[in-house]
C-alpha cells in the first residue's frame, strides 16, 4: 500500500512540477508581452531529449551524476508529508525529520556536481563553484527562520510543525517568512540569484556538458525538486494543507509570487548575491528570530 502511495506522490509531483514549469514559461512570456509556449512544453522538451538518438557521456561518474541528482530529488519528496493531519500521502516523513530534508535538498546537487566535475568542462566547474558559493549564503537566512520555527513548535518533525501552526507562521511571524522567502527565491533558481545556470555568461553552467537523456533527467528532477520545495515551504510557513485543492492552491500562490518576483529583476553577480543575502535577509531573519523567541 505504501509503495502505491509513494508512486502516486511521485506522479503527482512529476505532473504538477511540469505543469508549474509550463505555467512559469507562460507567465514570464506574458510579462514580456508575448504568447508563451503551450502549457506542457517543458514536458515535451524532456521527452524529446529522452528520445534523442544518442548522448555523450564522460565515464561512469558522469553517467551517475544526474542519477544521484534524480534519486536525491525523489528521496526528498518522499520525506515531506503532503498534508497536515492525515497520515496518508505522508510518504516516509514519519521516519525522518526536517534536518534530514534540509540535508537531502543539498545531497542531489552535490552528487550532480561530481558528474559535472568528471565531465571536465571548465564552464561546468565554474557553474558549480558559483552554485556552491551561493548555496551557503542562501542557507543562512533559511536556517535561521527554520530554527526559529522548530523551537517555536517544539519539534523537528515536519508534520508536527505544520499541525502546530494555529495561525500561519507567515502571518504570525512575518519577518521570519520574509527572510526565508528571499532564500527560497534563490533555491528555486529565480532571477536575482540564478547566476548559476546563466546560459550566456556561464555557457549554461553545470548543464553545459549534459546532452540527450542526461538533460532530460535533469529537467524532470528539477520539476520534482520544485514541487518538493514548494510543499516544504507550505508545510513550514503556510500552515500545511488539508486536501489536494488547498495544497495546489497554496503552492501555486507561492510559486506565482516567486516567478513574478524573479521575472522582474536582473541577475546578481555571485559576490553581489552573497553580499546581499548575508546582509538583508539575514538581519531580517535574526530580528524575526529574536522577536519570536522573546515572546
Amino acid at each position, binding site marked *: 500500500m505504501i509503495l502505491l502511495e509513494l508512486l502516486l506522490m511521485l506522479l503527482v509531483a512529476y505532473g504538477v512540477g511540469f505543469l508549474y514549469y509550463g505555467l512559469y514559461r507562460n507567465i514570464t512570456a506574458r510579462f514580456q508581452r508575448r504568447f508563451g509556449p503551450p502549457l506542457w512544453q517543458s514536458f515535451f522538451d524532456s521527452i524529446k531529449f529522452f528520445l*534523442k538518438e544518442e548522448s555523450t557521456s564522460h565515464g561512469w561518474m558522469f553517467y551517475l551524476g544526474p542519477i544521484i541528482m534524480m534519486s536525491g530529488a525523489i528521496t526528498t519528496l518522499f520525506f515531506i508529508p503532503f498534508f497536515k493531519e492525515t497520515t496518508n500521502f505522508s510518504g516516509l516523513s514519519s521516519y525522518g525529520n526536517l534536518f534530514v530534508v534540509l540535508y537531502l535538498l543539498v545531497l542531489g546537487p552535490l552528487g550532480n556536481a561530481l558528474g559535472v566535475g568528471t*565531465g571536465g568542462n571548465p564552464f561546468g*566547474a565554474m557553474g558549480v563553484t558559483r552554485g556552491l558559493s551561493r548555496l551557503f549564503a542562501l542557507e543562512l537566512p533559511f536556517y535561521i527562520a527554520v530554527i526559529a520555527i522548530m523551537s517555536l513548535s517544539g519539534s*523537528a518533525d515536519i508534520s508536527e510543525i505544520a499541525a502546530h501552526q494555529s495561525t500561519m507562521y507567515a502571518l504570525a511571524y512575518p519577518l521570519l517568512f520574509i527572510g526565508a522567502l528571499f532564500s527560497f527565491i534563490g533555491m528555486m533558481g529565480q532571477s536575482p540569484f540564478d547566476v548559476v545556470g546563466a546560459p550566456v555568461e556561464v555557457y549554461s553552467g553545470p548543464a553545459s556538458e549534459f546532452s540527450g537523456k542526461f538533460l532530460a533527467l535533469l529537467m524532470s528532477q528539477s520539476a520534482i525538486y520544485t514541487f518538493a520545495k514548494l510543499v516544504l515551504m507550505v508545510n513550514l510557513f503556510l500552515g500545511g494543507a488539508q486536501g489536494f485543492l488547498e495544497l495546489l492552491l497554496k503552492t501555486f500562490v507561492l510559486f506565482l509570487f516567486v516567478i513574478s518576483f524573479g521575472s522582474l529583476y536582473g541577475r546578481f553577480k555571485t559576490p553581489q548575491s552573497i553580499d546581499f543575502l*548575508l546582509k538583508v535577509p539575514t538581519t531580517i531573519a535574526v530580528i524575526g528570530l529574536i522577536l519570536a*523567541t522573546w515572546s
Partner: protein
Amino acid sequence: MMINLSNYALGHIVLALEMSHLANFFAVLILLSMGTLLFLVKNYALPKSFYALSALLSTSLFLIVYAADYLLFFIGWEVMSITTYFLLSFSVSQKTLHKYIIFAMSSALALFIAILMIYSTQQSFLYSDARESFELMGEFQGVFFLVLILFAIFVKLGVIGFHYWLVDAYEEAHDIFTAFLSAVLSKMGVYALIILVVKVTQPMLALAIIGVMTSIIATFKAIQEDSVKRVLAYSSIAQLGYIVTVLGVADGMSGALYHSLIHTAVKLLLFINIAGVIYMTGRDKFSQLGGLIYKMPQSFVLLLIGIIVLAGMPPLGGFSSKFLIYSALLDTKYLLLLSGVMFSSASAFLYIYKLIYGVYLGHPSHKKLESAKEVSLSFLLPQYLLAFILITLGTFPALIVPYINEILLESSLTTLSFTHAGELISAFAQFNGLIVMSAFGTIFVLVVIFFVSTRSKAKEAKNRFDIAYCGEEPDESTHLHYGYSMGKELARVGILRAIIKNSSSHFYEYLGKQTLSFAELFRKIYSGKLSVNFNIAILFLLLLLWGSLR
C-alpha cells in the same frame, strides 16, 4: 576499576589509574587510528626511531586516557607533547618546529599550574576531588584556573586564536603522522576538555560561542587554501569547533562523543586517501593535481564516502552525529549558536567539493599525472575498514547509543532514549537511518534501471578534450584545470574579506619580537663591565637595608 599506585608515593602523592567507560571510548579511538595507520607504515622508509617514538607516544596517550588523577594525566600530556615534537622533527621545518614547541610547552605548563591550584586547595590530584576543590577556590582563583585550563586545551585543539602552529605542523609533518595528529591528538584535547571543564564546572556559554566562532572562521580559511593538507587541517579545526560548541552547552556530551568518533574515522579516511595520492603523484597542491578519477577509481569512491560523511549528508554516519549536535543546541534557548553551526557546516560544502574536485575531477594539471596508477592494497584496506564503519553508523545510527548512555550514566548526565539500532532519537525528533539509507538505495537502483532502458544510448566521449568549448578545440597546452581555486572570490564579499584576510600570525610575531627585545635589555645588565655590576649590587644592598629598616 581503579589501580592505586599510592605505595609508590613521592611523599604521600596518590597516583591512580582507572578503566572508566569514557576512558575506554577514547582508548578505542586511539586503537582505531593506530590500527589503521599501521597498514601504511611499510610503504614508507621510516627511520627506526620513528617506531620507537610512536610507541612512546601511544603509551603516553593511553596514560592520559586511563589516568585517574591529574598528575599522571599531566605526565602523559607532557610526554605526548615532547614525543610529538620529535616525531615532527623528521620532516618539519625548523621554524614550524620551534613554533610548535613554544605553544606545546606553554600549554603543558599552564596545565601544570592549574593542576597545582587544584592540589593547593584539596591536597590531592584525584579527579573525584576536583569538583569540590574548584568550589573551594575563590572567585578570582576559579576564573584564573579556568583561563589556564582553557588556554592549554585551546592550544591543543587549535581553536582559532591559537592555531598559529597547528596548520603549518599538519602540513609539513609526515603524511602518516599528520593523520595520527589530527585524528587522535586533537581528541586528547577533547578528553581534557571533558574531564577538566565539563566534569568540574557547569556548562559555559563562552565555550560554546568560542566553538562557533572557531568553526565559522576555520571553514572560511579552509576554503582559501591551495594545499590539500592545509585544507584538512583547517577542516579538523572546524569540526573540533562543533565539539567545543556542543560541550559548552547542557547535555551536549552525547553529541560530542558521537562526533569525535565520526571525526576520527573520517579524518583518518581522508588523510590516508590523500597520503595515497601524494605517495603516487608526489604532489599535494590542488593546482598541481586533478583528473585522477579514472586512474585511481577506488580511492575516488573512498574519498567520496569520506566527504559525504564530512559534509554530514543523511545516508552516511556524518549526519547522525550532526543530528545529535543540532538537537542538543536546539534544546538551549541560544538559537543563534545553532544557526552559526549550521551556517558553518553549510559553507563547508565549498571546501568539501574542492577536496574531491581539486584532486580527482577536472583535467590533470600536468602530464605526469597521466601515469598515476591505483595505490596498493596497504593504502586501500584501512580506508575500506573506515568506510565500512562510517556506512554502518549511517544505516544504524543508534548502534553506539547504549555505550554512550553508559558513559553518560557514569558522569551522571541525562541519557538518550534508545529503541533499536536503526532509530536515533533525540529530544526534538528522531530519524531512522535504515529507512533513509534503503529508501535512497532502492530509488537509486530504480532510477538507474529506468535510465538505462531509455531509447537514447550514451556514447563514451573519445578523450578528455572532447568537450563543448565554444567551437574551439582544446589540446594538451590549453589550461583546463579550472575550479581548483574555487572560493577565492569570497574574498571580494565585504563581510567575508574581514574573516579571511586578517590572521593571528601578526599578533604572535609581534609578541615574539617584544620578548626578544625585552631579553636583550636584560642581557645588558649582565654586560661584561665589572663597574656596572657592582653599582647594581650596591643598589640592591641599599634597597635591602631600606626594606628591612623600615
